[in-house]
């Protein structure tokens, strides 16, 4: 397990370095630090795109056919780019044979202005997230020679799973304010400690706890940064990206957010959803255990008694 993790880490590092080398030769001016961090996530910067587009991360809708609502005004000189995306698998089944899955996030840019797939005119970031859940982070300290959990912080909502893929390293795509605004990148995930835990912890201590969450989640393979070419263009407007769902991905709905960047600003965004569902025996056992725990317990005991008796009966016969 550990060696596998290290190997993945090494390949990722190597891939990131490659990406840096490749990108730096073709990169046009990025790093315009667009700092108007006022709007909510996935709201498009209106001034830049002239025609105001507005979308929200609304309630679940049948994706695919969904288009961003555009309050069309008189189209002006520059045509408005818009991103549309979908996922290859809308629902992933978690069975007893589940060993992970790979989903394909793909889409296209309407009114693409870029000359070709390697022009670097646009950047795309794909973020796939699991349900945010309250998470306890504990820290051990040396108490009289024993290492004991002493400090703890509860973060109100930590995404159970977070995968990110982009056309190039995200800090080359946009400045920290933009990334913060849309919660793009591990360091920009919004983690707010529960109020009761805020006292007594300095900024530094809290930052260490946050860093620990990210580090541990990455070790568990639940926070994933897809390597170089995480998102690739095919021609002027089509793009694709593969996102890995590991075997231990927490079961629940996933949200895939796709951002279109130009000159360090989000100019369009799209949301697609993936559901992870237990099926078959897996679903049966899990819902049995959590909905009817008493009968599940009785069932477990009967199963144990039966298997114990069967085994000994079998071996007694085998011995005789």
């Amino acid at each position: 397990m550990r060696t596998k993790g290290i190997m993945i880490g090494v390949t990722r590092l190597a891939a990131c370095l490659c990406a840096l080398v490749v990108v730096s030769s073709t990169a046009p001016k990025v790093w315009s630090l667009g700092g108007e961090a006022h709007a909510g996530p996935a709201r498009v910067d209106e001034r830049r795109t002239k025609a105001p587009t507005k979308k929200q991360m609304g309630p679940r809708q049948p994706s695919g056919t969904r288009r961003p609502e555009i309050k069309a005004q008189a189209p002006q000189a520059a045509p408005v780019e818009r991103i549309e995306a979908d996922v290859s698998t809308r629902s992933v089944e978690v069975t007893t044979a589940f060993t992970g899955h790979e989903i394909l996030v793909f889409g296209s840019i309407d009114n693409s202005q870029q000359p070709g797939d390697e022009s670097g005119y646009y950047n795309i970031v794909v973020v796939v997230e699991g349900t945010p859940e309250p998470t306890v982070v504990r820290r051990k300290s040396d108490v009289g020679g024993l290492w004991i959990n002493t400090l703890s912080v509860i973060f109100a909502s930590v995404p159970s799973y977070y995968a990110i893929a982009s056309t190039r390293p995200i800090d080359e795509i946009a400045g920290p304010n933009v990334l913060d605004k849309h919660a793009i990148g591990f360091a920009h995930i919004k983690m707010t400690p529960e109020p009761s835990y805020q006292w007594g912890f300095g900024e530094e201590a809290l930052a260490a706890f946050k860093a620990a969450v990210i580090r541990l989640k990455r070790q568990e393979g639940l926070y994933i940064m897809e390597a170089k070419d995480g998102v690739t263009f095919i021609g002027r407007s089509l793009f694709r990206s593969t996102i890995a769902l590991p075997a231990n991905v927490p079961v629940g709905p996933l949200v895939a957010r796709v951002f279109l960047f130009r000159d360090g600003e989000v100019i369009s965004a799209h949301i697609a959803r993936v559901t992870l569902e237990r099926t078959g025996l897996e679903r049966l056992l899990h819902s049995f255990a959590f909905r009817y725990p008493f009968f599940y317990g009785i069932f477990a005991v009967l199963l144990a008694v039966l298997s114990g008796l069967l085994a000994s009966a079998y071996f007694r016969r085998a011995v005789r």
Partner: protein
Amino acid sequence: MNIYLPIAEMSVSVALFLGLGWAVGFLSGLFGVGGGFLLTPLLIFMGIPSAVAVGTGSMHIVASSVSGAIAQYQRNNVDIKMGFVLVAGGVFGSAIGVGIVRILRDIGQFDLFVALSYVTFLGAVGALMMIESVGTIRKARLGQPVSTRKTGQHSWVHGLPFKMRFHRSKLYISVVPPALIGAFVGFMAAVMGIGGGFVMVPAMIYLLRVPTNVVVGTSLFQIVFVMAVTTVLQAVQNQTVDVVLALLLIIGGVIGAQLGAAAGGRLKGEQLRFLLAALVILMCFRIGWDLVARPDELYSITPLLGVAK
């Protein structure tokens, strides 16, 4: 081949856990012990959450003890009356233990508590067994007669009230000590995921003076019932019983136990006890090391309990 465990929520190698069940089964067959004290820590080392390891361990013990208990019953080696007193105490102790598991998980000290309990009990039992077996081996070498247990002696245990006649054990003693022993073992069962035979058998022999031929059967009787109740309680209170994991361990375990028992027949009792003592002490040090060594990772994360998924 991998399989996804529904309660532990992880994908594990089938072969690995069959092998683990086999190895624990082999050792328990070899030494004639339940094996819970080996299984639970090994599951935790393998990355199974400690609460799931403890809960699933209790189901595993039901399976591995039930056939032995029935065999003992058929040979009339079970003092049913004594057994019920032990079970009554055991259920009480187990209920308290399961509740404490919940509280400790909430405050994040369950792992510490389990580790400390293991170090204490394994250390004490291992040391006692080691001293006893070394003494016996040395005496046997010197040609001295190995002293056997004296019967009919009275101790403070026999002065307590609420006396009851246990025909099968030929005893007329207070119900308080067996109920307390049962409660203590039930508590350990819930918190540590062990059957507790290694505590109950010596306690019955030395404190209650139950005849040796009845001790094993009666303690197996208690273990099966108390572990069955513990399994249900863990399922209800903590949802930590993984039947898929338990089945893997049981299947591996029954095969291993048969081979272990065959191998054990070739060794002398005190040699076996010496080896078992060495194993217990080794386990104790392994768990203790994790408590005192500076961990590589000081932080740990868990989803907040009691939140609907």
